[in-house]
């Protein structure tokens, strides 16, 4: 299959601040990666740098063999990145359907398929973006990324602040998209346990540096590693 | 860059920023000499001095406090009308007239500053523009007082302080205007180099941080806006005293735009920008404007576009930029 994403020595941040000093990462096609770490450690900055809305100081980003470093965010999106931003950022003055059609490209994911995946969205298709519940917004944000028919899906904290029942529904959708349909994906989460069952691999980010990388299944068996990097306290030193 | 480890060094470094640079001394000596050396240009020089004062007034709010105004002529015009009416009704002594105009315009500034404080840059632009338009309409409609579109004439101009006649004496008039400019420049210079002046620069640079240091941002802005309005009023009064008629052109948009342009040409935030800018502007206008008015308008528009395009890169105006760092006591980047 080959590599879908290759990041070489990326140095990025916002304004003058460097959040990621020197980050390299590869992702095989069809694979999914859980990006873990406490907040403030640079996970979102990494995702935002892949889509191109941060300040890049150096390094390269290669998507499916094509160097996209010099491309604008909209060009990167069309080159095959589907982005689910951290705060969901549903377009509030567009209806549910318009949120999808405004960005849709031709491919196997279309509006109807998104509605099949999330019947709740179909029920609310004429509602405006700002009239949706948090869970519905998250479904729409995922659907909006899917109708771009991306090669790589970026999901930034897609479970944040959602009720457990919605979380389960979304996790089922992720499993279907990532496991069954083999769409390459990077999933950012603080809550490791929830998503390690979905992804193939996991990387832990601390202060902008990848400090641990392993297969998800392996990491699940090592709660002490997770505790060390993600929990409170100083477990990793003792 | 060197390490500062003692308070004495720090005090010296700060005092150096406030000290008069020899270039400044030369500049004012040259200005004084122009009273006697350039008799044929006195009317132009008088114009330059008056516009300089007006531009300095705008610099106080724009260059130091960061308030963008498209209607600064409101205070200029108000000062002019007040000075003229005061001279007609009470006394024609010019310095008294200036004082009255300063107080009146300053009060107008104080009252209107409450409107200007609100909102973003954009709202400020619109509100300042609106204030000037309202003032224009008022002056236009209250023709029983202001002469309306015909202008206000018959303003008596007595000798300055009872000793120096300036009516129909270009040399004396220029000397008087220049002296006023110099005194007010020195005052402005002291203000901008004071703790108060520093607080303005701080508010302009980062209002959020300033307020979290304990600066009452709004009070400081009200203060400087009022001072600037008083300055503009004095400039207006000076023009009224040195020209036979006070008219609506004192308040119109063109005047607000011109003074902004002059200041931008010369550079903001070091006080001399207003003087240099108005000199360049008026001299250019004298030569280019003689061809045709459209010609002048086109080139002034062109200059604005070019300045706006390159102001940030500081290409064309790097000379003034360097000057500003030298005499403005600014930290070198």
């Amino acid at each position: 299959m080959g590599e879908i994403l290759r990041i070489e020595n990326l140095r990025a941040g916002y304004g003058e601040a460097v959040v990621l000093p020197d980050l390299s990462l590869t992702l095989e096609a069809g694979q999914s990666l859980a990006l873990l770490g406490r907040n403030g450690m640079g996970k979102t900055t990494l995702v935002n740098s892949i889509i191109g809305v941060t300040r890049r100081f150096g390094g390269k980003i290669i998507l499916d063999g094509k160097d996209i470093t010099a491309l604008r965010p909209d060009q990167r999106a069309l080159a095959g990145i589907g982005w689910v931003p951290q705060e969901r950022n549903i377009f509030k003055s567009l209806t549910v359907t318009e949120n999808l059609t405004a960005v849709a490209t031709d491919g196997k994911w279309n509006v109807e398929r998104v509605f099949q995946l999330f019947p709740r969205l179909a029920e609310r298709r004429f509602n405006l973006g700002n009239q949706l519940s948090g869970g519905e917004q998250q479904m729409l944000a995922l659907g909006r990324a899917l109708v771009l028919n991306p090669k790589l899906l970026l999901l930034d904290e897609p479970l944040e602040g959602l009720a457990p029942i919605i979380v389960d529904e979304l996790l089922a959708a992720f499993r279907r998209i990532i496991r069954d349909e083999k769409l390459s994906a990077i999933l950012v989460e603080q809550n490791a346990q929830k998503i390690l069952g979905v992804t193939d691999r996991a990387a832990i980010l601390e202060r902008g540096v990848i400090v641990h990388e392993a297969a998800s299944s392996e990491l699940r068996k090592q709660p002490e590693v997770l505790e060390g990097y993600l929990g409170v306290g100083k477990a990793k030193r003792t | 860059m060197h390490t500062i480890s003692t308070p004495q060094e720090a005090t010296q470094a700060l005092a150096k920023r406030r000290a008069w640079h020899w270039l400044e001394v030369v500049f004012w000596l040259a200005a004084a000499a122009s009273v006697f050396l350039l008799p044929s240009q006195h009317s132009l020089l008088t114009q330059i001095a008056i516009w300089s004062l007006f531009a300095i007034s705008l610099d106080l709010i724009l260059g130091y406090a960061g308030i963008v105004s498209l209607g600064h002529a409101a205070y200029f015009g108000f000062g002019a009308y007040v000075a003229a009416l005061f001279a007609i009704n009470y006394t024609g002594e010019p310095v008294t007239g200036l004082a009255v105009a300063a107080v009146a315009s300053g009060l107008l500034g104080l009252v209107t500053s409450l409107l200007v404080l609100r909102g973003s840059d954009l709202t400020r632009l619109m509100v300042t523009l609106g204030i000037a338009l309202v003032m224009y309409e008022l002056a236009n409609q209250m023709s029983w007082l202001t002469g309306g579109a015909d202008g206000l004439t018959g303003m008596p101009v007595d000798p300055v302080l009872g000793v120096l006649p300036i009516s129909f004496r270009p040399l004396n008039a220029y000397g008087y205007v220049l002296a006023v400019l110099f005194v007010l420049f020195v005052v402005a210079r002291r203000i901008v180099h004071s703790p108060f002046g520093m607080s303005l620069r701080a508010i302009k640079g980062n209002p959020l941080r300033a307020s979290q240091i304990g600066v009452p941002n709004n009070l400081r802005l009200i203060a400087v806006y009022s001072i600037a309005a008083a300055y503009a009023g004095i400039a207006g009064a000076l023009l009224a005293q040195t020209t036979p008629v006070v008219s609506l052109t004192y308040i119109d948009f063109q005047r607000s735009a011109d003074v902004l342009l002059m200041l931008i040409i010369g550079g903001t935030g070091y006080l001399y920008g207003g003087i240099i800018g108005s000199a360049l502007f008026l001299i250019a206008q004298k030569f280019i404007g003689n061809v045709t008015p459209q010609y002048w308008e086109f080139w002034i528009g062109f200059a604005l576009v070019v300045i706006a395009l390159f102001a940030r890169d500081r290409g064309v105006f790097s000379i003034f930029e360097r000057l500003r760092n030298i005499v403005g006591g600014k930290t070198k980047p």
Partner: protein
Amino acid sequence: MNALETIHLEKRFGGIVPTSDVNLVVREGARHALIGPNGAGKTTLINLLTGVLKPSKGRIKLGGEDITVLKPHQRVARGISRTFQINQVFGELSPLESIVFAIGEREHLGTRFWRGFGSDDAIVAEAVAIAKQFGLSDVLTAQTASLPYGKQRQLEIALAIAGKPRVLLLDEPAAGVPEAERHEILEIVAALPQDVTVLLIEHDMDIVFGFADRISVLVEGKLFVEGEPKEIENDPRVRAVYLGERADG
């Protein structure tokens, strides 16, 4: 004696409630850390304390005095200082000018328009001392905007300290600072004067546990748990919040 206290503090933006019924008590002289996952409302709380935002409900007390309705600059005058998550410094000024200015404002000398700026020897001397303490002596006359981010960060904290606060709010002091310059920030935070009450927001648990003597955990706008570092470290509910295990499991 409580340095800072919030009573049923609440903030609403439309339907969102970033701060909900928060009763926070910070004791005099405490080293108090505020932690919690993303979107827990930590920065909103700081903004409420400093008066950048107005609360929808509840009171805020500083040293027993109700400051709920005071403007930001009035709160500063009563002893609250803060640093920002993203540097808020005066880029055009030099660090020397910035610190001298901050001290002058603390002494309410900012309305003096006829004295020269920097002509007060006592203030300049204090500024030089603060600069030395914060490792800024070698860059005092440079333009702040041209300094590296770490130095600006040091100035950011120095400006807050220059106000001689009773309560200092530190919003992620090490955020955005490159690894190489990090230890300087940490040393500075550790060396803050003992009589200053500090409320710290931080994600870096090394910093939190190395510094705090009391920790409050904020989750979804509510105060979730509060206690000594040891208690927090071993509290399964806190671990659950961070790791995503169920609280009972």
